[in-house]
């Protein structure tokens, strides 16, 4: 078996057997310029003929999609956070700021996790019928959404975002991120697929063949990001294909094409990584110290993502795992353990019948 086939840095297409594979293609999603327009969600649905995911008001800021599902291959997350006025004052002139005494567009450190704790708790308790399995389910621990919970009256909030229980109002910011399948170097979904329905393309992406998938559901448990999902009534697993059909015709994926701010950038992964590093340096230079890259590192637990992100807060705030690891990393160890258990069992049966030198 070639080196790093299960874990570690790797160029996935040649590893999958492609000769003369084109450069690995991917997405760099720069959340610092996302305006939350959801054009990516719409373009994806239009191009890929993805069914509707149900209309509902989730109470999660402007996010009524809820998450990535079999029927939503792009998902724009919205996070409302208070920012401290003092911190802004320390920073002097507004970075990327607006007119007059308006706070900068994104600056300062969040003081708590959300700007309107009561609406966050409401959002956490709300599930949504997306026509998929498991789809978008309510959070089991709503308190995790808002440590400082106040009495929530259940009505659409009449208070402004950032309003504290005492009536005082903080400044706040919105974090917006267009989430998508990560097209991992070591893809948990692909590794566990028992039918070969999931495969590695020549572009290094991961795609489900709909005519092969028999809906066993293993990929759904195998994904450390919670991306792939099963469509109800259809039974098969669906996720982002990175517009494999468009790539083969040398076209940009639909979401990147539709993005009006170039928050979603598409291109050869090497080039995107360079661009991301430059962008990060720029943001750090202007004082946006909370900016960090997520999924760009080939040394991480999944060997680096084909679709990676620039975030302005911890990954878990966006619903991303902080340190994902492909389960396959431990597969050799798991087979060895199973082998030991199997031998133990065989020995136990043999001893039970033959006895240890005596018969009862």
């Amino acid at each position: 078996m070639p080196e790093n086939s299960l874990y570690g840095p790797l160029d996935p297409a040649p590893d999958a057997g492609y000769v003369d594979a084109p450069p690995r293609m991917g997405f760099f999603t720069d959340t610092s310029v996302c305006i939350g327009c959801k054009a990516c969600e719409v373009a994806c649905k239009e191009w890929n003929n993805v069914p509707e995911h149900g209309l509902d008001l989730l109470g999660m800021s402007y996010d009524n999609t809820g998450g990535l599902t079999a029927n939503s291959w792009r998902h724009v997350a919205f996070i409302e956070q208070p920012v401290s006025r003092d911190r802004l004052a320390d920073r002097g002139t507004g970075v990327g700021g607006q007119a007059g005494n308006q706070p900068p567009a994104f600056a300062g450190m969040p003081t708590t996790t959300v700007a309107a704790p009561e609406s966050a708790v409401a959002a956490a308790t709300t599930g949504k019928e997306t026509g998929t399995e498991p789809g978008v389910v309510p959070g089991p621990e709503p308190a995790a959404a808002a440590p400082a919970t106040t009495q929530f009256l259940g009505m659409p909030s009449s208070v402004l975002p950032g309003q504290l229980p005492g009536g005082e109002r903080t400044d706040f910011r919105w974090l917006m991120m267009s989430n998508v399948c990560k097209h991992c170097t070591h893809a948990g979904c692909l590794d566990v697929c028992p039918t070969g329905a999931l495969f590695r393309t020549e572009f290094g992406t991961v795609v489900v063949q709909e005519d092969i998938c028999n809906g066993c559901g293993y990929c759904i448990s195998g994904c450390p990001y919670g991306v792939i999902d099963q469509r109800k009534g259809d039974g098969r697993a669906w996720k982002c294909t990175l517009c494999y059909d468009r790539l083969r015709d040398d076209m940009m994926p639909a979401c990147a094409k539709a993005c009006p701010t170039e928050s979603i950038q598409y291109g050869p992964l090497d080039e995107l990584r360079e661009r991301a590093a430059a962008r990060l340096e720029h943001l750090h230079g202007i004082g946006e110290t909370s900016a960090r890259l997520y999924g760009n590192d080939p040394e991480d637990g999944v060997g680096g993502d084909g679709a990676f992100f620039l975030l302005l807060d911890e990954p878990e705030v966006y619903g991303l795992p902080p340190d994902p690891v492909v389960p396959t990393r431990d597969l050799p160890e798991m087979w060895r353990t199973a082998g030991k258990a199997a031998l133990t069992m065989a020995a136990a049966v043999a001893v039970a019948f033959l006895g240890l030198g005596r018969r009862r």
Partner: protein
Amino acid sequence: MTAGEMGSMGREAASREPAGRPPVGDRFRQFQSSLRRGEGKRERREGGERSMVPRAEFRSYYGRPVLKEPVWHHDIAAYLFTGGLAAASSMIAAGADLTGRPVLRRTGRLTSLAALGASTYFLINDLGRPERFHHMLRVAKPTSPMSVGTWILSAFGVNAGAAAAAEFAPLLPQRGVLGLARRVLPPVGRGAGLAAFLLGPPLATYTAVLLSQTAVPSWHEARRYLPFVFAGSASAAASGVGLIAAPLSETGPVRRLGVAGAALDLAAMHRVEHSMGLVSEPYRIGRQGRLLRAARACTAAGAVGALVSRRSRVLSALSGAALVAGSVLTRFGIFDAGKASARDPKYTVVPQRERLEARAPSHDHEGFAGS
């Protein structure tokens, strides 16, 4: 998908909606009552009732799960039991065949065949596209325990089936082609039974790898213990069936195996429930925690019963039933604990955050991925 299909799906959804959707305001009422319950819980917690496990502080996206909960239904939990039962029953049958215990042999072979049939049903029934079950046979893929298991189960099925068929030889006529089969079947059955003996342990333990080879925190972290739990649980269950069906003169081996299997199951399960930190918690709380406590009681009672019931047919059968029940409960409890751990972002975020922080002092950038 054609436009017509999409249209019909839309109509279905529309016609489902009045029944499927809760009445207006229902979600608000549920939310209010959950809030009240939640606050009550918090007060009690402060009172020190749950001081054992400190409340994990973590951040998340509106408290929602990071992972997708496994979409497998209880078919798969049932298969974990029937697959293990088939495997260990075949092994007992082979042992009984070689040591001249005819009733135990017949019981083992027929139990194995029945459990195999049930396993096949459960596995195919759980697929999103059951009619495509044979797509599993397109590939053989060592990174997918489900693919490996498909081939193990297929090979095992042929042999266990042949061994079980041999039990029907005495029903065939003495003469003719069928008479030949009557004479050939027993030795063929013995050979097939021995092959099934060799395939039994892999069949009983690969399912543990299948659960652990997922991102589900409480399954993946249990990877060093689950194969032993499953090997023990399968041995105990099949021994239990032997204790129920075989006469006292033949049950010596299954008593010993039942006790050994139960001990292995209980010891490994203890590690699963207590040695994995936060991700052990789902095995102790909720409905699955109750299932696993019941499983422990049944398995322990069955093992003790198997030891003391050498002279009583009734007590032997009761002990056997307890061992079988313990195995069923163990499998369902483990299955549900994994699902619970995927549902709550706490079990995903907190251990990963701790991992990052443990790495932070020696490495000053975040991307480092040690093991």
